[in-house]
């Protein structure tokens, strides 16, 4: 087990390096940071000097080495655009994204799982079919359209919920949370729904497929044959067995949620990492983009590792053996 984790950690370092390298390649391709950093009247000489000072004229690998070197020492560098330290910037945006992602995931689970179970148990029922089609339509409309629609419906027409931002937040140490105020929660509803819709559909369909599969297995048939109450068969026996594969997929989805939050955050002006990232693309804030990527990769690596460990812990069949 320890060996497995160590091996995976070593591999993870390579993953991060690869991502860092890709991230860093962005330096070259996204656009010209200098013309984004300076005003129209800045002379060419001044621009050149700035370029030199920022080390943008150094050979690619020198820049890359410097970037990784600094990063390994915990120095994430400074934003081109605002000159703020990037570590601090990302850290201040992290809670927003994590809270949004988590709530979206939770919504997708508490709605998606029961809906999946329901539609699995009555596969041909009218309600099931309606749910299935409705969610399909929901995910067929691009997220950005859905988000704006929700904003106009609930924010403008009905005036029930805020249209942008995080609302009231409470600082717990450096963690800025919107989970402790009513305002915060009201602000969270729409973006979380928008972000969660895709996951919800996915979870529902996954649970449904898995559940239908499990309901056909021998141990369920045996439970039926010995007269175990239906409720227990469905929710204790079938659902718990359904959840093993579902959990692992959900683990991976969490990474997807964070990546997907870019769109949602931009629609709801949600001050998370995704929004920061989009802005840094717009302004060619290369260091911020790169660090963002590495941080996201780090999340992925951790989540993947946890999921694999979880799987390994839950399902003994996966403990691969080979002859020596």
């Amino acid at each position, binding site marked *: 087990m320890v060996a497995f984790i160590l*091996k995976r950690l070593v*591999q*993870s370092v*390579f*993953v991060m390096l*690869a*991502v860092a390298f*890709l991230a860093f*390649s*962005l330096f*070259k*391709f*996204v656009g010209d940071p200098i013309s984004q950093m300076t005003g129209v009247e800045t002379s060419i000489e001044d621009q050149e000097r700035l370029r030199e000072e920022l080390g943008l004229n150094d050979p690619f690998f020198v820049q890359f080495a410097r970037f990784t070197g600094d990063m390994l020492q915990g120095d994430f560098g400074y934003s081109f655009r605002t000159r703020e330290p990037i570590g601090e910037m990302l850290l201040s945006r992290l809670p927003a994204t994590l809270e949004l992602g988590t709530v979206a995931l939770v919504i997708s689970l508490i709605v998606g799982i029961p809906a999946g179970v329901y539609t699995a148990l009555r596969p041909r029922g009218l309600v099931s*079919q309606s749910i299935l*089609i409705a969610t*399909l*339509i929901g*995910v*067929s*409309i*691009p*997220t*950005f*359209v859905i988000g*704006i629609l929700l904003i*106009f419906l609930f924010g403008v027409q009905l005036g029930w919920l805020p249209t942008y931002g995080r609302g009231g937040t409470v600082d717990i140490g450096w963690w800025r949370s919107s989970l402790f105020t009513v305002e915060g929660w009201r602000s969270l509803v729409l973006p979380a729904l928008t972000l969660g819709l895709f996951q919800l559909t996915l979870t529902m369909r996954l649970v449904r*497929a898995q559940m239908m*599969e499990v309901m*056909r297995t021998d141990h369920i048939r045996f439970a039926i044959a010995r007269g175990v109450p239906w409720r227990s068969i469905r929710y204790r026996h079938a659902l718990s067995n359904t959840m093993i594969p579902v959990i692992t997929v959900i683990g*991976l989805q969490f*990474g*997807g949620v964070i*990546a*997907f939050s*870019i*769109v949602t955050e*931009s629609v709801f002006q949600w001050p998370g990492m995704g929004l920061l990232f*989009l802005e840094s*693309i717009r302004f060619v804030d290369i260091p911020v983009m790169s660090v963002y*990527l590495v941080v*996201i*990769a780090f*999340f*992925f*690596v951790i989540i*993947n590792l946890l999921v694999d460990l979880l799987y390994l812990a839950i399902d003994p069949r996966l403990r*691969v053996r080979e002859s020596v």
Partner: protein
Amino acid sequence: MLGRLMQSEAVWLFSRSPAAILAAIAAVTIVLGALFAPWIAPTDPYDLSSFSLIDGLLPPVWEDGGDPRFLLGTDDQGRDMFSSILYGARLSLAIAGMAMAIALVLGVGLGLAAGYYGGRFDAVVMRIADVQLALPAILTALLIDGISRGILPRDMHDDLRLGVITVAIALSLWVNFARTARASVFVERNKDYVQAAIMMGQHPLRIMARHILPNILGPLLVIATVDLASAILLEATLSFLGVGLPADSPSLGTLIRIGMQYLLSGEWWILWIPTLFLVVLVVAINLLGDFLRDLFNPSLR
């Protein structure tokens, strides 16, 4: 003979599923419309001289102020929406289809080999998959776009836009195929027919391609249809984030992105008609995917 059997099964299953029938009709109609767009569409939205700004923002015919020349109205450039949508669907399907095909080949190839050889090769492929997963599609698109700009001559860029998007979408989809293929190979590999082939000393490539691949194709095809739908959506999202296709060669996604500007302005048709098309297309493809899954799942037969 298997083909014939499959056919009859398919037909049988099909006839029992009204959703699949409707989906198939919708999908076929849209695909045909897209395929024959140049013959069906009243105008060519790529031909700049065929439309005029004077006709801009006309509503569909059934609305007040509609113009019979423009069945579904015009956009802010005076382009016929109906033609744009047909051509847009054509482009969307082409991109999504190509992306899917690339992802399928890449993903299945790597997944097969990873599952078959296991060990270090498997680890490397799976870690590459991790890297890929860590890069959201928009980043991949940016990266590819940037790299292609960097290494290819400038005047090819426009033609390359399409390729860039396609490759970016393909890259963000292949992992799915690779993971699924790999998991299936793990199962399949230990089955006796593969063991028999190994024992006989058959070439690994032949074992993978001729023996294992046909047996794991079912779930892969299901993913392929579902991913076809996500690819279409992904393209739309990339457009929204500004790394999509140029507005003068619109895909459905680009049309929706442009239409977003008119969400409130009263010119609803610019947004909602392409969106409706997209929804119908994506839902239809997904339903067909579900249907395929039923078809391939022996326990449901």
